[in-house]
């Protein structure tokens, strides 16, 4: 970036009276972040301002880097799950599922049907949480605080149900290699259906508050525009790519788990601006609602983890009652599961796009390498280009709708 210039950008016409003359502005460097109320996560954006317009912008990330990949290389395959929770901490189960699928792809492990349905249900509930968080934060930062209150109510209702299931609001640690960690508690399905109704009511309220709101439309329509070509070139995925008019959704393009048995639509936008990205999220929450209801109808009782003592802990009566069970338990806990040597790339449709895990195994109990393709990475990368020449005020809704999550981008 060029050094701030001292010369006036707008030359003052000599003939004009001093009151009519345009106000001469100097370029000014402003630091947004790393800790700023309007920046989610700790990203430092250095913005060169020309008046109120962004002349140039540079991002400086890494404040939240905690060595995710290095940590994973030094624990067993199963111990990686809690680390994946902290990638996208708003929708942690989708990270759990993505990682589990990568390991299962390497091991060639089949997951029981009920576990697949449970993974889809929890993933879709978390997708709703993620989108609610984004829309609430966007509302708050555009001055509509009520949206935040409604959004948080809906999100916490869902999180309460997930707490009943996994024992934690955020760090769910729910999926396991070969299945999920526990089955649903009694009466859970009915409770979820009840909160889905309440969430829908709140969603309608949010929709009424925002979608036809003049201020929101003025600030989001036509700002942060990404063309279809640029979106593909930058590697956008998820709602941000679909807002630009590309109908790519991993759930449809290469269905995993039981998504091929479910009936849902993928919304596609056309303008690629903040408003379209917001609309994608609103519609996707509706579709997630549909998916969860269908899963409850289709799901049958059954096992929640594969019956394979090489990868899955045996049931407790077997551990305490038989030498084989005790040995299998001991070996999995102490040495870790032995994933066959090789490499595999598994990808799921997380809330912000394609979340990929590139797992390399050398046949020992630990991952040799675990690479994460975080969806937010590509969107954040494109932010400077999206902002150049635009108003500084547009940075806030743009930063909201690309929904960069520090946990996954900075690993």
């Amino acid at each position, binding site marked *: 970036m060029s050094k701030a210039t001292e010369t006036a950008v707008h030359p003052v016409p000599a003939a004009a009276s001093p009151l009519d003359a345009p106000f001469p502005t100097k370029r000014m*460097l402003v630091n947004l972040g790393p800790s700023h109320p309007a920046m989610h996560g700790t990203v430092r954006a250095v913005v060169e301002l020309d008046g109120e317009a962004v002349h140039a912008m540079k991002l400086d990330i890494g404040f939240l880097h905690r060595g995710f990949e290095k940590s994973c290389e030094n624990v067993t395959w199963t111990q990686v799950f809690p680390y994946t929770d902290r990638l996208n901490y708003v929708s942690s189960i989708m990270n759990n599922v993505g990682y589990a699928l990568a390991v299962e792809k390497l091991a060639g492990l089949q997951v029981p049907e009920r576990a697949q349905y449970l993974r889809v249900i929890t993933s879709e509930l978390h997708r709703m949480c993620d989108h609610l968080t984004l829309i609430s934060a966007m509302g708050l930062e555009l001055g509509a605080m009520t949206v935040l209150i409604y959004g948080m109510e809906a999100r916490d209702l869902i999180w309460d149900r997930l707490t009943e299931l996994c024992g934690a609001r955020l760090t769910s640690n729910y999926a396991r290699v070969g299945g999920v960690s526990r089955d649903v508690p009694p009466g859970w399905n009915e409770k979820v259906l009840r909160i889905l109704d309440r969430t829908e009511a709140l969603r309608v309220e949010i929709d009424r508050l925002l979608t036809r709101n003049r201020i929101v439309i003025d600030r989001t329509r036509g700002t942060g525009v990404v063309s279809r070509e640029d979106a593909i*070139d930058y590697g956008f995925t998820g709602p941000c790519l679909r807002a630009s008019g590309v109908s790519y959704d991993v759930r449809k393009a290469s269905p995993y788990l039981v998504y091929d048995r479910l009936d849902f639509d993928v919304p596609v936008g056309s303008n690629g601006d903040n408003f379209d990205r917001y609309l994608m999220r609103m519609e996707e929450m509706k579709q997630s609602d549909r998916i969860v209801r269908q899963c409850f109808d289709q799901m049958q009782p059954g096992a929640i983890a594969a019956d394979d003592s090489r990868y899955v802990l045996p049931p407790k009566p077997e551990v305490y009652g038989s030498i084989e069970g005790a040995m299998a338990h001991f070996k999995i806990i102490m040495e870790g599961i032995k994933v066959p040597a090789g490499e595999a790339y598994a990808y799921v449709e997380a809330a912000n796009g394609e979340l990929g895990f590139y797992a390399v195994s050398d046949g020992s109990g630990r991952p040799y390498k675990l690479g994460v*393709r975080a969806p937010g*990475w590509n969107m954040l990368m494109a932010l400077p280009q999206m902002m150049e020449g635009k108003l500084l005020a547009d940075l806030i809704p743009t930063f909201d709708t690309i929904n960069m999550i520090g946990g996954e981008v900075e690993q």
Partner: protein
Amino acid sequence: MSQAALQRLKERFPDAVTEAYTGPGGDDVALVKKESIEEVCRFLKSDPETAFDMAPYITAVDYMGSEPRFELVYQMYSTTRNHRLRLRVGVPESDPVVRSVTPLWKGANWYERYCWDLYGIRFEGHPDMRRLYMYEEFVGHPLRKDYSLRGRQPLIPERQVDEPFRGPGPSGS
């Protein structure tokens, strides 16, 4: 997931593609020579039959003790053809420099900076070859297998701040 793309690549570059196989779960993989990666990528992006238009996910692996020591992995995806391909490129420790693909896909920019930062693989022709997560004074490349898990980084002298309102850092001074 695309035998057709793999075949096309093998026919077009019989010398550059040293091996091709289908890995666990049906992933199609091609091992490509380091010298030809830019040419191969340009072909894969522009050829209408392969059309890998989306920016690839690029990462690296450190196979310490084998030759070549490093490996770059490109996960390609085509939005028009909905197929995937993985390229593996061996990078020797003695010459860890590879042609950049950022001129082809803008989205490769930060992935290549990541490989430089954490593995020490340099990319020729990259517009902004700086570290991504670590600070510029950081010693070593943390994801290399011989990077110590214990130990500390040396303290760095305080950066000179020319103007108090602008701050230090790559853009501030």
